[in-house]
């Protein structure tokens, strides 16, 4: 059941990415290009997704526990620290260079564009490097890691 529902959740997420245009890097880059070929569509993706999640979360949080697990596991970290800002900035730069964030990169995989095929392994390598950097603690001088 966990596998089936996991797959189904991912499928719906992926359909959302495809239908919204978010899985198309050209659309993302145009959203970020305020001074050029600006396409505000992605603001509608965010609005639709956030509003749905905002309402839906409050409905499912009425339960004591999630359906297929023992407890809700929400990020406990609330400090706005250096890794958060630096990480978000690096991510934003990469997003602006390639037009892909992690979800769309996965969803774009079966279309086998050469750009996707090199982006995804590079992203996995980056995730590994970033996680190593975090665990080595050199970016969190104030002990801000979880």
């Amino acid at each position, binding site marked *: 059941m966990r596998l089936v529902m996991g797959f189904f959740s991912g499928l719906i997420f992926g359909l959302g990415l495809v239908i919204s245009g978010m899985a198309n890097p050209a659309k993302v880059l145009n959203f970020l290009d305020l001074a050029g070929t600006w396409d505000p569509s992605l603001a509608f993706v965010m609005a639709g997704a956030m509003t749905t999640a905002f309402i839906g979360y409050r409905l499912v949080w009425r339960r004591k526990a999630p359906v297929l697990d023992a407890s809700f596991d929400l990020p406990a970290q609330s400090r706005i620290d250096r890794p*958060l800002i630096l990480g978000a900035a690096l991510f934003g730069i990469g997003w602006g260079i390639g037009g892909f964030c992690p979800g769309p990169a996965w969803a774009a995989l079966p279309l086998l564009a050469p*750009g996707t095929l090199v982006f995804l392994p590079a992203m996995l390598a980056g995730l*590994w490097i970033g996680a190593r950097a975090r665990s080595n603690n050199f970016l969190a001088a104030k002990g801000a890691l979880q």
Partner: protein
Amino acid sequence: MELAVETAFTPWASLAGGVLIGLSAVMVMGLFGRIAGISGITAGFLGAIAPMTRAPRDRDWRIAFLLGLIAAPPLVMLLGGTVTQSVPRNLLRMVMAGLLVGVGTALGSGCTSGHGVCGLARLSRRSLVAVLTFMAAGVATVFVLRHVVGAV
């Protein structure tokens, strides 16, 4: 260098797609009690990335989730829909982009979905700061690449 590809403004399709993304985030929370952050799910799938994935026991649904993501475009095409996509063709550029996205989301503990959708829906201050930061960085990067350097 590549030319910017013009894209049509699609408010309704984008809103509808966004609702589906939000619905999926709600499903992940309601079923597994987790944030549907794709960078986190990917890290959980990688497994080797210990600091980002707390419990290996819930690697199962993450792998299934990623398979679901990958299955979406073929399903759309099977149903007769078209999947429009234009990926930058400069491979060196895409390798750099991938590395930055990976490192950045690992350090910043989240991406567009985790911070953007789930975090903002939880009214997390940390996520708001992350979203404003990566949006600003993305806009600045595209501005520099397209309008200063002239590399689209």
